[in-house]
């Protein structure tokens, strides 16, 4: 992937485009183009590029939307795809244009099909002869239809080809080069999706409710549709507001634990202890939330949140101290502490009594009754649902304040426009505009979202992570230790002190996840209960790796994981052999492939530093980088198990 700025795209770029287009062209021929409708058990009516319709639903007479203009458009997209393929083969200058055209044509087909399906849905809604139940069923039937892999692949391949084709222009090359950090996670996700697809193909039998046995070809189409169905269900929650809020709710604890693992990564430590730290944080939050004097009022909530942070920090500090003082590996110690924390958790809420030296005592922290849970939190210690906080409350309907959105938009726009002190000015602008628009609401229809205030605490932690790590002297010392302990020690930075500090802060982040479960009522009640999913702590590892240990990356990865967790529940309901655990496998595969560098060549993932590359090109007038913080964040992750000498180079930048 060496950039050669000639008039033609590089061989590598052309090869990438060629492969993408070949796969997409095959996909268009071999896979269903679109789903015209889908029943509850994922039984579908499939449309192929040839215009053949395969009905796998129980109702063989169900009226189908007209596909009139969609098929010719799809054929046109196919033609453009072939043209791109030939262009990529010849390394022609123009193939990015046909690539873009493929994308546009495929997208237009999707839009057209979507319109036809919507028309069908509204026709059903207007039909007065249908029973309410049948109406809902038919509406869902058409609403679950849409594009299938035969349209998804050419759109994707068109984008890839256009991007690859454009790299012969320096401007585009540099844009793509700056996004290089995304390569490994993207490739890892792609590979995990591929393996997951194979698992689905192997595990789940074709869904066929039509009563007629499937031919070989029909069976293949039905099977391949299943793969698309599973993934479209997993990633669907981003497309509607209600499930999106649900996935943000599930993402909240992942942000905490992801930040925790990422913080440790940055300082060269591997924190496998997030589950234990989360548990201790939740226990501490519960203790304060239930037993602190109610006279504190709002201070009770604050104290409870601080207790969660302190509980996690303490649990993180132990392995930190052990590593700094005795040199015992933090990996094994954090794992052991997970088990200890889990034992304490079970001890506290597991049973009503416990024996001690031959006598039996009653357990004071467990609520009365057979359920393993603590007492209810005092109302002052509860974090309200975010919707309630953001609700302007006009005339009894739900109306969301647009203040938050306006503030966010103002922040992004101002930050892009202003040159100096941009973060401060942007923050001020966001605050002012947000405050001004706080009372303006937009009515929305949301069914009881449980997204709670812990989400805001998580965002505050993201800001804290970024500020602490890249804007303070302490953060500099922490990163220096992560990049090369020896060099840091030589430079007068105490490795022991920073190891303890790093583990304490990492533990604090994980402990704050307890606020989501206990104060935020994410366990369906405002109390500590046994169904707390401590595995979220391990997901933090995947989140941190996928987010490249940057704050923004952690948020993005958490939202992605929250999305597929939400979607996994739906897939679980509809298919009998595929369940939620496929999501766990996907996450594990993502970690596996990221560990392998996405199986990408090292030439791609670790090219020579920008400064060296610029020095090798005498004709360039080395343009000032757009964002120095960006570059800073792009520094390679510290090596975890060894202090390799080559890292000192970057450490000294």
């Amino acid at each position, binding site marked *: 992937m060496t950039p050669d700025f000639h008039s033609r795209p590089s061989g590598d770029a052309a090869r990438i485009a060629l492969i993408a287009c070949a796969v997409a062209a095959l996909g268009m021929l071999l896979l269903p183009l679109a789903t015209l409708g889908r029943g509850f058990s994922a039984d579908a009516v499939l449309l192929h590029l040839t215009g053949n319709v395969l009905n796998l639903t129980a109702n063989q007479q169900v009226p189908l939307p007209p596909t009139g203009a969609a098929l010719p458009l799809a054929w046109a997209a196919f033609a453009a795809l072939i043209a791109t393929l030939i262009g990529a083969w010849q390394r022609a200058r123009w193939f990015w244009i046909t690539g873009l055209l493929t994308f546009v044509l495929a997208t237009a087909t999707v839009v057209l099909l979507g319109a036809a399906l919507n028309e069908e849905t509204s026709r059903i809604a207007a039909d007065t002869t249908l029973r309410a139940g049948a109406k809902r069923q038919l509406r869902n039937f058409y609403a679950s239809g849409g594009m299938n892999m035969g349209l998804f692949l050419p759109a994707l391949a068109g984008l890839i080809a256009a991007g690859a084709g454009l790299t012969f222009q320096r401007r585009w090359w540099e844009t793509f080069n700056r996004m290089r950090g995304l390569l490994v996670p993207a490739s890892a996700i792609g590979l995990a999706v591929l393996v997951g697809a194979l698992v689905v193909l192997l595990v789940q039998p074709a869904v066929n409710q039509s009563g007629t046995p499937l031919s070989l070809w029909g069976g293949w189409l039905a099977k391949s549709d299943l793969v698309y169905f599973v993934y479209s269900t997993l990633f669907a929650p981003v497309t509607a507001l209600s499930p999106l809020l649900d996935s943000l709710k599930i993402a909240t604890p992942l942000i905490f634990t992801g930040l925790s693992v990422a913080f440790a990564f940055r300082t060269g430590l591997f924190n496998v202890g997030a589950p234990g730290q989360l548990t201790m944080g939740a226990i501490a939050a519960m203790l304060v939330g239930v037993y602190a004097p109610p006279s504190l009022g709002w201070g009770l909530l604050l104290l409870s949140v601080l207790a969660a942070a302190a509980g996690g920090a303490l649990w993180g500090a132990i392995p930190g101290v*052990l590593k700094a003082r005795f040199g*015992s590996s933090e990996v094994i110690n954090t794992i052991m502490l997970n088990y200890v924390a889990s034992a304490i958790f079970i001890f506290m809420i597991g049973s009503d009594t416990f*024996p001690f030296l031959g006598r039996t005592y009653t357990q004071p922290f467990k609520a009365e009754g057979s359920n393993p849970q603590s007492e209810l939190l005092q109302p002052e210690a509860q974090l309200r649902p975010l919707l309630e906080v953001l609700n302007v409350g006009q005339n009894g309907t739900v109306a969301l304040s647009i203040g938050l959105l306006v503030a966010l938009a103002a922040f992004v726009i101002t930050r892009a426009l202003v040159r100096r002190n941009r973060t401060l000015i942007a923050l001020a602008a966001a605050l002012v505009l947000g405050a001004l628009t706080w009372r303006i609401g937009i009515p929305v229809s949301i069914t009881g979202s449980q997204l709670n205030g812990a989400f805001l605490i998580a965002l505050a932690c993201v800001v804290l992570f970024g500020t602490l790590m890249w804007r303070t002297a302490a953060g500099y010392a922490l990163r220096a230790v992560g990049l090369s302990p020896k060099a840091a020690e030589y430079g007068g930075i105490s490795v022991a002190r920073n190891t303890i500090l790093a583990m304490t802060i990492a533990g604090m982040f994980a402990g704050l996840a307890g606020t989501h479960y206990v104060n935020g009522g994410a366990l369906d009640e405002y109390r500590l209960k046994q169904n707390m999913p401590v595995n979220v702590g391990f997901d933090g590892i995947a989140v941190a*790796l996928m987010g490249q240990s940057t704050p923004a990356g952690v948020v993005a990865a958490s939202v992605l994981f929250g999305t597929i967790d939400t979607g996994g529940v739906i897939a679980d309901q509809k298919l009998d*052999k595929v369940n939620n655990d496929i999501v766990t496998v996907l996450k594990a595969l993502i*970690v596996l492939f*990221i560990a392998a*560098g996405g*199986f990408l060549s090292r030439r791609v993932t670790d090219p020579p530093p920008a400064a060296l590359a610029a020095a090798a090109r005498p004709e360039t007038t080395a343009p000032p980088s757009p964002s120095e913080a960006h570059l800073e964040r792009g520094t390679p992750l510290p090596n975890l198990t060894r202090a390799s000498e080559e890292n000192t180079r970057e450490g000294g930048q």
Partner: protein
Amino acid sequence: MEGLIAQIFTTAFLATFIRSLVPLLLTALGGLFSERSGVVNIALDGLIIFGALAGAVVTQVLNPSLGAAAPWVGWLAGMLVGGLIAWIHAVLSIKYRADQVISGTAINLLATGVPAVLLTALYGVSNESPKVENALPLWGVGELRFSPPVYFAFLAVAVTWYVMYRTPYGLRLRATGEQPGAAASMGVNVRRMRYSAVILSGVLAGTAGVFLSIGNLDSYVRNISAGSGFIALAALIFGQWRPLGVLGATALFGLLQALSTYLGGSDLLPPALVSALPYLITILALIFTGRSRAPKALGTPYEG
């Protein structure tokens, strides 16, 4: 108090002790090979789970056709699958020079998801396999009756000691973990040594899993390893990466686990807290050993 001690030190307790010791011993011996070759193997816990699953499922599937021979084939399958999964760890950490701790963690994560997917596909339930009709046979006298992997484990200690210190393979393996560059210059194929050691660790951990699923119980249940892999890893460090040290350390941890099983039923301490004892002792044990005697090249990919 005396009553309790008399109650504990019985043949039944000895049997429990040996049953808690064996999975730790097998896994730690596996870890010994891997770590002596310079590859950190955090994945041991996951390897146990994969071995246990493969053992139980294969035995269950083959039972109608093979009858009493099925568990033996199941054992073989557990070893093979353990070795195969360990091979993935080996490829990542040797060929792709991945961070060995992360690669191992990925395999542990896989072990939390794959069994559930597989069991759902095969049996429609996600957390346990159906009971096998023929588990591994029990050999021995009176209350001290154990399945073959128990005897295999003690044999493995002797064999490991012999291989490690009395064969060219052991010498090369140790050299690979200490100074891969020097070993390579003497004509040792460092990568092949590491591959073989890591796969061997998977085979031994897979056997530990087979013991848990069809040697001790008669089915695979979710979370069957209960962290044995990590305790075995700690025992490996505590035993200073030496076969006899590993035997001593796993005996200590096995004793603690057996004690916590026994104390859990008594009225001396809260059972939940007693179950945490082995982990606490592990932390204490690690304080006193540290990483002082670790193979020098442990955790570093070989760049040759």
